[in-house]
């Protein structure tokens, strides 16, 4: 079922590319159709997902691949990955809707890359064979590089190369760590395997576990991104076309958090526990630093990108607090940030599509020109600054309340991030939406955009007011993660 899911997307990608030569309006429809039809193999899992019966995986399947090295196509879903897969599909849809009018140049190739990247991401969320995981990790990145480098804005090549170098460096570290892990396991048990479940049983010696863990850890925090490795993100976001920004913010960053939760914490519980205080300090610093940087930006997209850094700091914070509540919080934060940042980027893209500028100094008084779009922007800004009742708040709150017992002082610093969130959030509203009118009249949101944004807004409201189904779904995975750590 899971293989089908990925194959459908890849097939859709190829067909979209080919269909471009028939009519350049076809690829987007094919993208939508393949995204929707990829829900089909998922539906029995979603049905089963609500009734968890104590098994580790909701669904798992394995096909032999490279038997010589005992590498298999081992795909499985649990609550956490199911949530993220659903988020990916949904945000993929949003991205396609964003690109609807914006992309006309070589649209077939664009949707090919988009769908490939999505397929890679979903593969990352499903793969439980470490080698397969790495393969998907790369499948996800290369199309992304092309998307930024070909369809980006003025400084796209710089941004694309920066993005590629950073993530590729992380990927390399991860590959080294995967190899080291597998070889260490081979030395100890005499069995060569990349299988997650088997590697999970294996206890590494303390010193080697630390270094192997560090490789994974750095790869994932580059992706998240956390402060000393964050600087690819603002450039990539600023230069990427709207749809790509949406994918990047909503899904790609989540692979970092997912990797931490799925691999780093369960595989190296003691080593993770050892560095947890430092990591949390780093995360707190990231929260504050991202907030400060967001405030000082003039470019709207850059501002939102820095705010992402701040928000993803909460994810890291929650992951390493190693309590159930905080882990739930990290997952909620990933989901909510996925939705809210996607919406914010889509809105900024919509503004740029209309006025060809993202400069806060050139915008202003948007409310009088585009009242609906402004109201929506305000809603999502408010969501991202953590208003209770919306998804982001639940994430942040759970992270904070879960971490407080572990690291009270750092948690207090993280709470200050909420103040910064208000400061930079209001800056967007103040500079872009309010003040004297500076721009010419323009068409307000159309039906396609309205449906998209209202849908996302409702999703955030649902997450904020009734997060329990999501929490229940993730419970099994959280147990796995935290039980490992507590031992």
């Amino acid at each position, binding site marked *: 079922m899971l293989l089908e899911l990925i194959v459908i997307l890849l097939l859709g990608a190829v067909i979209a590319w080919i269909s471009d030569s028939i009519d350049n309006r076809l690829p987007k429809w094919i993208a939508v159709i393949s995204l929707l039809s990829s829900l089909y193999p998922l539906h029995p899992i979603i049905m089963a997902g609500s009734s968890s019966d104590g098994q580790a995986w909701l669904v798992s399947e394995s096909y032999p691949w490279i038997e010589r090295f005992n590498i298999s196509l081992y795909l499985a879903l649990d609550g956490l990955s199911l949530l993220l897969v659903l988020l990916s599909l949904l945000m993929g849809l949003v991205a396609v809707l964003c690109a609807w009018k914006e992309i006309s140049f070589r649209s077939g190739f664009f949707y090919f890359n988009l769908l490939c990247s999505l397929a890679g991401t979903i593969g990352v969320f499903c793969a439980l064979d470490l080698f397969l995981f790495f393969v998907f990790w790369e499948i996800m990145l290369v199309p992304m590089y092309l998307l930024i480098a070909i369809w980006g804005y003025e400084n796209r090549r710089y941004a694309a190369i920066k993005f590629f170098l950073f993530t590729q460096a992380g990927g390399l570290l991860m590959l080294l760590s995967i190899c080291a892990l597998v070889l260490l396991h081979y030395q100890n048990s005499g069995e060569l395997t990349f299988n997650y479940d088997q590697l999970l049983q294996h206890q590494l010696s303390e010193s080697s576990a630390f270094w192997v863990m560090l490789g994974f850890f750095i790869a994932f925090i580059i992706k998240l991104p956390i*402060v*000393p490795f*964050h*600087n690819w993100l*603002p450039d990539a976001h600023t230069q990427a076309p709207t749809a790509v920004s949406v994918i990047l913010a909503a899904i790609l960053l989540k692979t970092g958090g997912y990797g931490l939760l799925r691999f780093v914490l369960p595989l190296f519980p003691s080593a993770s526990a050892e560095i947890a205080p430092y990591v949390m300090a780093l995360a707190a610093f990231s929260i504050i630093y991202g907030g*400060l*940087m967001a*405030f*000082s*930006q003039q470019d709207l997209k850059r501002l939102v990108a820095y705010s992402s850094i701040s928000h993803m700091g909460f994810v890291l914070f929650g992951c390493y607090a190693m309590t*159930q*509540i905080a882990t*739930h919080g990290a997952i909620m934060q990933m989901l909510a940030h996925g939705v809210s940042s996607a919406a914010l980027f889509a809105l900024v893209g919509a503004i740029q599509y209309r006025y060809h500028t993202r400069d806060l100094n050139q915008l202003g*008084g948007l*409310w*009088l020109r585009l*009242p*609906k779009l402004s*109201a*929506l922007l305000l809603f999502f800004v*408010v969501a991202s600054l953590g*208003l*209770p*009742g919306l998804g982001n*708040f*639940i994430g942040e*709150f*759970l992270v*904070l*309340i879960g971490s*407080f*017992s572990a690291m*009270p002082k750092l*948690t*207090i610093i993280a*709470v*200050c991030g*909420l*103040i910064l969130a*208000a*400061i930079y959030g*209001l800056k967007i*509203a*103040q500079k872009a*939406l*309010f*003040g*004297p*009118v500076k721009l010419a009249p323009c068409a307000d949101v159309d039906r396609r955009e*309205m449906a998209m944004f*209202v849908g996302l807004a409702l999703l955030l409201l649902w997450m904020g*007011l*009734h*997060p*329990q189904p999501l*929490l229940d779904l993730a*419970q099994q995975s959280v147990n796995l993660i935290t039980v490992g750590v507590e031992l």
Partner: protein
Amino acid sequence: MQDHYLANLLMLVVLLPLFSACLLMLSALFSVKLSKTSVTLLAVGCMALAAILVLLVGIEYSDYAGQSFSYRYANWIEIGQLRLSFGFYLDPLSLVMIAIVTGVGFLIHLFSIGFMQQDADFQRFFIYLNLFISAMLTLVLADNLLLLFLGWEGVGLCSYLLIGFWHQQPANILAANKAFIMTRIGDAALAIALLLLFLLLGSLNIQEIQLKAVQLWPLDDNASQYRLDWVSICALLLLAGAIGKSGQFPLHTWLPDAMAGPTPVSALIHAATMVTAGVYLIARFYQLFNLSPLAMLAVASIGAITLILAATAALVQSDLKRILAYSTISQIGYMFLALGAGAYSAAVFHLMTHAFFKALLFLSAGALVYSLGHQQNIFRMGGLAKKTPFICACFLAGCAALSALPFMSGYFSKDFILESLLQQQMYGFWAIAIIGAFITAFYSFRLFFLIFCGDCQLNPDKKLPTSMIIPLALLLLLSVFGGIMPAVLNVLFEGGPALLASVTNDSLALHLLTIATPISAVLLCWLIFRKHSFSERFNSSLTPRFKYLLFMGWGIDRLQEKIFTQPFIRLCQANKNDFIDRLSQLLSHISQYGHRQLQRLQNGKLRWYAASLILSAIVALLSIVLLR
């Protein structure tokens, strides 16, 4: 069965304004044009319905005879120990609060119909206003801290939106930002309090927290009283949250600026309801606060400082709404003082009367501003008593109540506060309160005389519509007679000084003093006014610098800007280009430099290549020979 009925009533009370807000919002989003009448009907109708339902709630609740009522509607979050639900908790305190919110809220809604009639954003105004009411009701009814926090942030957001309602003036937006961010600082403290309470007590339910707190940290008479123990820390953090929301020193500077919003908003949010949320919070946690003498002292001190600070600042302002704003800060200072003295009933009583008379004052100020064509400087007004007798009457009643002239509503509540201070033997605070009362009376009548007496300078050009007159009249009645029903409030809190306790002999003299103080202030004010000594400018006064300092609100605003805002902005500007990015660019610069250097080796000169080949061969040979 009865429980369900009451629960449904409560839910309806909260949901009705929310429903109307959502409906209006959706109609705006999906371009369904609504006429102003239908907007009015929906918004104000829902509000009226909510007010009526609160009345029903009150009637229904009387059966409970002061027992608290709580009901859980749905689960919110449930992970392990963390169990949160959407639940309401009704006791006399929250009943009083929802009554004030819906009652005063309804009147202000009514008033807004006329006031905002000409505004293009009529619908948006009512969306925000309804949203606010709903959030405020959630705040006061919430049975757990997180739901309270939801309401707390919700009202903050609405306050932000309404202060910046006329968003084309950048100044308004700055004021709105300031309000939101400053209260957010308090909110962060509240959030930390929430985290701490959960960590220490393992619950977020307000009643459970207090129950456990009483068990866990019994008040120890032997230990030194003002200890910084856990309960004090929790209480102080809660206090910090309350300070932010209620505009108390040192986080009060946003409130005078918040007057940038439409006047009904100032009346509803920045006088009657939202800013008193801090008072409500402390009153709600009175058992917790009772456990910590240190926190109580802090509450009282902050109240006292604010009270004097704001009252003196109000003495010299020239903007009508700013005076009222400072007066609000000062009056909330009174409430804090009462809370600090443990006189929770007195505080809530004053909260109620303050809601009445301050709403009245703001609304009549609004009516005045409305009829004068948005003139707010009191020195440009004068002699309006004859032109606008009704507003004058309202204003007079409001000022009298504010100054606590005998037998106005404000008199009872303020008197009660003073009395409780004496009972608690807090003489220092009592003296401050008396001084504050004197100043209060002085500035209120300065305001009144300057507007309504003397020479006429302005002519009102608009007649008030009925929708503005009715709420004014009702509030007028409430301000005058609202103080006669304090007995209801006696049941609010267990312990603490009883309301209107029998006046003992030794305090009779002091009692007379409290009556005499405002009267003498009014007389003094009249004398000065007759001599035309009030002046907008500062050069006529003997101590112009001091007066300017007062005018600037003791310069606290400036100080905060110098100490926090400007360094913050400068820090951000300095690091605008992200020094970490620079560091990573350094890496690329280094490799580019290396590239250039290496490129110079590859110069295409054959002989150079041959030489380097030979040289390296020699080096290699030498190293082999020497290193062996």
